[in-house]
């Protein structure tokens, strides 16, 4: 980040120089991106060879950052060919699914990421359930899922309809990421295809570097193993403590077994933390599973001498109070930090918003509210990804109003109608701009609502409901529109800050999860706790100030845990 020449630590140097496969366990702030860039420089030092390096990660943000760095260092050009920089799923799609199609299906494969959102409604009066409620192999309803959707009654008709829907999807070559992974794996497992693909990939790629490997699910791991067996040096970089993609099937136990397939010489640690202060570094160690605390990361970065202790914000009551935000703001301000650089994060955006006293997502999902939330998100997102997502939400609402999607999912519609982002984005952008909520422009939320109706009415199909029926008045609209002023702390989910860093961060545990998390960290509960890993991910983003908010009952236990590691910690009762 600074212009001074990079001087790698011994650990980093070993990783940069290691030829062949390796499993690299990296702590937060270990300088992974830097090390990957240096590794690429090393591999490409003999000039262009026509062979490439495949860089795979699991989040688009991480991919962007790495690609940007490699480009700025002059290590890759545009297009990046013969290299590959992208998500694991994009790699599989590009190299194993799109070129070959799906066995037994004549249609060209198409990616429909939101396939599971497709509604299943076997007959007009039946309750609509998303396809995701039904097992992708058997088609049987998944009890936990239908329970979440409050379904009661006989499910047979739904199951039949779900099976038929999945079959139709497949006939049309419409795959989601999970389908794509199994198609890819089947191709690699096939002896004839594998015999061709192995040498082809080995000749094309000098090395395969998988970052954020803690997010691999067992299928991903099998695929990586295949590449390793094909003779391609594979670098697997992971922080098992940061595995927070359980919903994608990511499993820490399998990762552990996978790591054991590497010899001792191939297992390289990176335990120097260049991001956080020494207190935060220790505090973060305390947030790992009890059996993962043997090595205490060393603070090496510019903030290592920061004296501020980890702040435990102890709150009372059944909900998440806005006093958390107030206190956090005070703490950050005392260190001279701008609030907008210091997010409040939690597992769900709602918890974070509560902590800041922001209007909460009341769960009312009517179009008016969603439009207001999308427009607010657009104007208060502070990085490109968030703005893009907000625009997608705006576009989706426009499509829903116009009735163009029919029974299709959003992505299915985009693919079918061959709609490229540049075709719809200008319109969505114009709408988001026109509906920017500010007191000078709109005296009241109702005035905003009237303008929204006026702007969107032309989209409605001729003989459907009126705009007033579609965009109903909603009492919560005020709250959705009054989202944080630009100078305040943003509320974000932990997933959205993965891979980033901030001068200060406040991690909020909700009353419903806090006890489970602290029990797990204290060693009082066995098994696996993904919620705890989320807190770990959030907390390890901090450079100078880390605040953890949790209920009064749990706060002292957490303080003790951190003290046990040796970090300075202060408990603040709110």
């Amino acid at each position: 980040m600074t212009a001074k020449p990079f001087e790698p630590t011994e650990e980093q140097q070993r990783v940069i120089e290691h030829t062949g496969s390796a499993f690299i366990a990296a702590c937060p702030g270990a300088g992974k991106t830097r090390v990957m860039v240096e590794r690429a420089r090393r591999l490409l030092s003999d000039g262009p060879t026509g062979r490439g390096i495949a860089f795979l990660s699991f989040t688009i943000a991480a991919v962007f950052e790495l690609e940007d760095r490699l480009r700025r260092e002059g290590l890759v050009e545009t297009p990046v060919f013969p290299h590959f920089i992208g998500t694991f799923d994009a790699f599989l799609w590009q190299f194993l699914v799109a070129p070959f199609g799906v066995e037994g299906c004549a249609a060209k494969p198409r990616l429909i990421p939101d396939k599971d959102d497709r509604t299943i409604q076997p007959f007009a009066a039946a309750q609509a359930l998303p396809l995701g409620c039904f097992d992708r192999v058997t088609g049987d309803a998944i009890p936990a899922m239908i329970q979440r959707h409050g379904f009661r009654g006989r499910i047979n008709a739904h199951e039949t309809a779900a099976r038929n829907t999945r079959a139709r999807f497949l006939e049309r070559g419409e795959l989601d990421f999970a389908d794509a992974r199994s198609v890819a794996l089947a191709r690699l497992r096939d002896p004839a295809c594998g015999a061709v693909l192995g040498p082809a990939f080995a000749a094309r790629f000098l090395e395969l570097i998988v970052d954020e490997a803690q997010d691999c699910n067992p299928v991903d791991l099998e695929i990586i193993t295949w590449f390793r067996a094909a003779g391609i040096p594979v670098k697997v970089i992971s922080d098992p403590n940061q595995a927070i993609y359980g919903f994608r099937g990511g499993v820490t136990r399998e990762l552990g077994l996978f790591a054991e397939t590497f010899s001792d010489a191939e297992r390289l640690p990176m335990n120097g933390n260049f991001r956080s202060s020494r207190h935060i570094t220790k505090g973060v160690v305390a947030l790992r599973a009890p059996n993962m605390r043997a090595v205490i990361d060393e603070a090496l970065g510019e903030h290592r001498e920061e004296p501020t202790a980890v702040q435990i914000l102890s709150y009372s009551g059944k909900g998440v109070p806005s006093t958390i935000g107030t206190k956090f703001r005070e703490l950050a301000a005392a260190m001279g930090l701008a609030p907008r650089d210091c997010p409040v994060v939690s597992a769900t955006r709602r918890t974070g918003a509560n902590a800041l006293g922001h209007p909460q997502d009341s769960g009312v999902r009517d179009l008016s509210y969603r439009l207001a939330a999308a427009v607010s998100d657009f104007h208060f997102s502070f990085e490109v990804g968030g703005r893009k997502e907000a625009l997608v939400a705006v576009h989706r609402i426009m499509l829903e109003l116009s009735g163009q999607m029919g029974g299709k999912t959003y992505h299915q519609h985009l693919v079918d109608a061959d709609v490229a982002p540049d075709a719809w984005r200008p319109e969505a952008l114009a709408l988001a701009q026109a509906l920017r909520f500010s007191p000078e422009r709109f005296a009241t939320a109702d005035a905003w609502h009237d303008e929204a109706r006026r702007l969107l009415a032309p989209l409605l199909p001729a003989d459907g409901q009126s705009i007033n029926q579609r965009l109903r008045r909603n009492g919560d609209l005020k709250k959705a529109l009054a989202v944080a002023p630009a100078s305040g702390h943003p509320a974000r989910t932990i997933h959205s800050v993965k891979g980033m860093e901030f001068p200060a961060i406040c991690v909020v545990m909700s009353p419903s999860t806090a006890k489970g998390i602290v029990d797990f960290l204290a060693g009082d509960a066995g098994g696996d706790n993904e919620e705890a890993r989320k807190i770990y991910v959030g907390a390890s983003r901090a450079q100078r100030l880390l605040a953890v908010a949790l209920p009064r009952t749990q706060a002292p236990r957490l303080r003790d845990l951190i003290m046990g590691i040796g970090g300075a910690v202060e408990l603040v009762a709110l």
Partner: protein
Amino acid sequence: MYLDKLTLNNFRSFAESEIPLCKDLTLLVGENNGGKSNAIDAIRLLTAPLGGRRELYCETTDIRFGSPDRKFELSATFAELSPAQQGRMISAATDAAISGCVFGLKYDETTRRFPIRPSLWAGHQRGNPEPGCHEMVRHVYLPPLRDAKRALASGNPTRIYALLNHFLEGGDPEVLAKALRRGAESEILSKVGGAVEIGLSALTAGVRRQAASLGFSSDEKLIDIARDLRFKLADHGIEPEDLRYSGHGYANLLYMATIAVELEKVNDADLTLFLVEEPEAHLHPQLQAAVLSFLDEQAEKSRKPRPGHQGPAGELQVIVATHSPNLSAWVESKKLVFFRSFLPAPAGGAPDRPQDDAQPLAGVPAEIMPEIEPNPIMPVGRRRRETRCIPLAALALDPVERRKVDRYLDVTKSAFLFGGRVLLVEGIAEALLLPIMAKKIVLKDHADKLRLFRSAVFVPIDGVDFQPYTKLLLSPFNEVRIADRLVVLTDGDGGEVAEGAIIPGAGRKRDLEALVAGLGAADLLEVVINDYSLETELVRAGNAALLKEVYIQLRPRSGDKWDAAVALAGAAQAVAIQKLFETTRKGDFAQLVAEEINKGTAFTVPDYLKTAIEALVK
């Protein structure tokens, strides 16, 4: 890896065609307007130019002339990929085994999204190619010299100068510059125009010898290429030093220097296609073969396996469009692809409806119309000419026939690849006499027929082995044959045949007719025979006096021999006349007879020759 197959759909002169190509060198041969350049342009559209600067783009006029279907599509299939190439071309794989890769280009006006953006697709799923992989196949386009200005302007004149300098084995740059300046006054170079001047001024301005030779001496590869090129020319008996003193010479050298500079860059790509159009337009005949065999060798060399090398393979493939018999004679027949314009039979046997009005183009915006104007839509029922190809490799010749064809296809004979009407004769005498007989006597009053006759190709085959030629010319491929009409003129050779036995000529006629009937082309072949041989038949037709005069010109003291032979009758006469020509060259004799006919001396054309002439223009 090499370009194995090109498909063209509704593109310019092509309705729907597939052109197979050879690994090292392919010659596209055929008449003018046969569609050769269109095939070359298709490759230029489908692949990236090596220099990175595209000179050709898809246009609305590329849609087949008069087609109501406002789109076209091209595709290129590549075969024999190395594992590294399979890895790079995976998004364009033709099948699960990645046994090949395919790229396609689709230009579609029916989307009504103007301006039209041609879309590039890849692989059997016709998906998006991985960005960058398509650029692993490049082309170098070597246009006929009339466009050399451009070719030169895009090259680096200093480098080309340095190369020439080296190529000519040192020498004083001042002298070279002077020679070049003198050359600039020649006709050819005046066509090259300003580009050369730019080159020359760069060369002569203070003669930057230092910079030029420095820039070159570090360039190992270029030196190697120059050395190879020089050796190759020496093989063909050409001294580069001699070339620079002739008008064409300098242009030729420039051309070769351009090739060398381009060749130097091929290692950055997996495959470079050298597209050479009409090299005969500016290269000395003996240079044509020298240059092409040089390229062919470079192509072969580029495919030498380099163990452990996984980067771009730097392979080379040469595709030449030519109507030079010199070139088609020089390569094996299986590397030739014959092009011709073909008028398909009307669908369902419906008669032509030539007077239907052209239809307006629905949905095409007014501002685009002027571009399409010369290409109005023709009524569907109307027959349109289209390009069809015959890869000579695809014809069913057995190995012996194939060897014969390769041996026989010399410069004079390969001419039949360029014309639809072909007359095969035994020797030079017939080939000399028939045109003059047709012009002065048989077709004297039929200007139309005479024009047809003149467009025909006369091939003396030096013998009687007509079978392989006939098979080559009349074998069908995708409804078309190389020849439109084939007349074989052969002697009866009935002189020394036992009474009642079939004469050799009749036997040949019978065999050829049976062969051609088997090829389904009986109506395209006419085998014309006489009783004995040409000279005898000329005598028998009543030209004895004239022929004697001519004979005596050649053999002043053999008048008696002539009289004695002519005095005989029937088979005995034939045998005796043949004996006369054992010591007299038939070609010289025929030449003199032709001169007499041309002068207007009275002459009677034997009936069988009349028949042959008329059969050719039928």
